[in-house]
């Protein structure tokens, strides 16, 4: 009886694990890692910009420091967006 159970389970597992091979090679889809990394970087940069704005509004950053930091951060954000655009353009 144990052997029967073992064989049934083994067959079920083998069937399940081999399922991806029944479909076409290109059917599996995942996002481009480069794109994912840039999108995560963009998200982090937006958060940084929002944090800097909040720090300025709550008085932690002087006007001068904020202006400098904000333009630095926005410059970095633009660079990320440019790279994103370029990558998307290449893909399409």
């Amino acid at each position, binding site marked *: 009886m144990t052997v029967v159970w073992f064989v049934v*389970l083994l067959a079920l*597992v083998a069937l*399940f*694990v*081999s*399922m*991806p*091979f029944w*479909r076409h*090679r290109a059917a*599996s*889809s*995942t*996002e*481009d*890692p480069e794109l*994912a*990394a*840039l*999108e*995560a*970087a963009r*998200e*982090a940069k937006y*958060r*940084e910009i*929002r*944090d*800097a704005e*909040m*720090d300025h*509004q*709550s*008085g*932690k*950053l*002087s006007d001068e*420091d904020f202006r400098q*930091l904000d333009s630095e951060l926005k410059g970095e954000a633009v660079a990320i967006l440019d790279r994103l655009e370029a990558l998307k353009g290449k893909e399409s």
Partner: protein
Amino acid sequence: MIGTRGDRRWVDSSRYAVYALCALMVLCVVVIEHAFLTDDFSFNVVATHSSIETPTFYKFTAMWSSQEGSLLLWAFILSVVATISLAATRHRLRDLVPWATAVMMGIATFFTALMLFGGDVNPFQSISPVPADGTGLNPLLQHPSMIIHPPMLYTGYVSLTVPFAFAIGALISRRVDAAWVKSTRGFALIAWTFLSIGIILGSRWSYTELGWGGYWAWDPVENASVMPWLITTAYIHSIMVQEKRGMLKVWNASLIVASFSLALLGTFLVRSGVLQSIHAFGDSTVGPYFLALIGVVLIGSTWLIISRLDILRSERKIDSLASREAVFLINNLLLIALCAIVFWGTFFPLISEALTGTRSTLAGPWFDRYTTPIAVVLVLFTGIGPMMSWRRISMAGAKRVFTWPLIAAAVAFLGLLLFTDAAHSFWALMIFTLAAFTVTALVQETWRAAAARRRSAGGSILGSIWINAKRNHRRYGGYVVHLGLIVLLVGIAASSSFETKRDVKLKPGESTKVDDYTVTYVAPTVSRNDQALIFGAKLQIDRDGQEFARLNPTRQYHQVTDGRVRGIATYFDGEATSEVGLKAGMRSDFWTSVEPDTTEIRRRAQIADKRFAAYMTQVVLPAIQRNPEKRGPMSSQLAEVQSLATDKIIAGYENPNLEAPVTIRVIISPMVTWIWVGAVIAILGALFAAWPSGLLRRRRKAS
């Protein structure tokens, strides 16, 4: 790994294999649980960790009280967290997921192979002949906290496999980018939350069940759980520096390796019997395998980090020491120092034995001496961190944010000095003062951000706080965690520095004074259940002439489970547990335990046992030899008589003429409840921080 060469179907297939492993592990757990619940003593694990008399509730949890069952739990939880992490990343992190899958399944292979080939740790091992009853579950483990504490702690330990596996995957695939940071941070936060729940439940169990009156004893196994917690705390902070500033990449990779290695070390400590602990499983054969795994993890990871130094270089340097990243770095160093002290103290018995040949242990005061000052500075930085801005804070900004917290700290310091006894403990005074600083800082941060929102968008201040929190779960969840930890630390400082502890010996009707309370030993109590004799004391506690509480602490003597012939006196040779009498309050806890004098009861029980033994050899056995059919009726008759004799003997404990004295331990601890309250706040904060923000949820839905 074949899938990394291009054909993604291999990667999908490996993910399906993880799902299949999870399903099989569920099946294994169901089989073992079914065996426990149906008293199937053909399973060795059931026969040695349960019995017919074990309450059903505890039969269900008995699986993880055994070495083999807890290994199965490890493998089961690992398969669940691996399934969740791979399902969550099935469309993402294309390059590193195959490697992360390989690492997680490598660890899973270790645990399943250990169960199958590691000696006596196979949960499916059967025994023959099948015993009629099992030896029962250790009574100390029959406590509500024990139902949930081990699975929570294990989930914390095991969850650390996920960030570790993704970190290794990122290093191998050379993708140490923002996408990796985002995913591992989330997994680490979840692991931290489970570890926190596990640790605090363990403390609660220690406080209410072990009868020594404390919640933390610097026991090796307790220490083993707190070390990965400290390192994961450091990681959760420093990963933010990497995310925002592109710095500390080597540091973060090392922290995640260290936290996983410490989780394995904790598992090794519980299982190897190398250090003595109330929480450990005792000697076993699995220790060397764990050491080998830890060795492989450490050597392999170190080599990998060194070989990837080119991609782990910091993109920037710290602009100013007056910045959030600098404070996070200091906070990291403090946490590492704390962990190093705990590590040294925990392993000192082994180190001293290796160097001098004599095993010496370091007790609680040693740990307190070195950890308390660091904890105090950490409280300070818990407040400073959120007030700093990234990159640098201006002088005017610093003045603006530090003014109120400093005023609050000064007021708290003077108030405590003038109106309380806090000055009797320097470190407690420091913690209270800095707690005032930190709480004010957190409130100020929340308030100012809400005020800024209100200025630009209108609405109420509470509404603005809620909108800010909803938009930034991480930040506000973090604030709540900080608040919870401060409350917890204040509870620890107050209860450990200002507790009153007295052991008093009283006879029924006698009273004694402990601080402002009068403790009266009203009467002895005695009862028994299927498993134990329970001796207790009815206590009345009065304060200022008014009744404050009625408590009934008990001491339970469990029947032996070592295969000896059971008598009445053998109850006193088995495990003894305490059920404390506790009146908990927000200001202080009144905690009592009792150590009854059972000398007279034992003496009577021994006499009865001798008579039973004589009756057995002189009457029962010859009668059974003459007529074997009498075995059944005579055995049940004898059991009934023995039961009646037990009742009669223990009833003597309540006899007023006996006047048996009891030793009552009384502990009055201020603010212990705040430890549990602080932990709940911190855990809720962590859950809020880990919860995906509305923006993220919408983006995921759209994708």
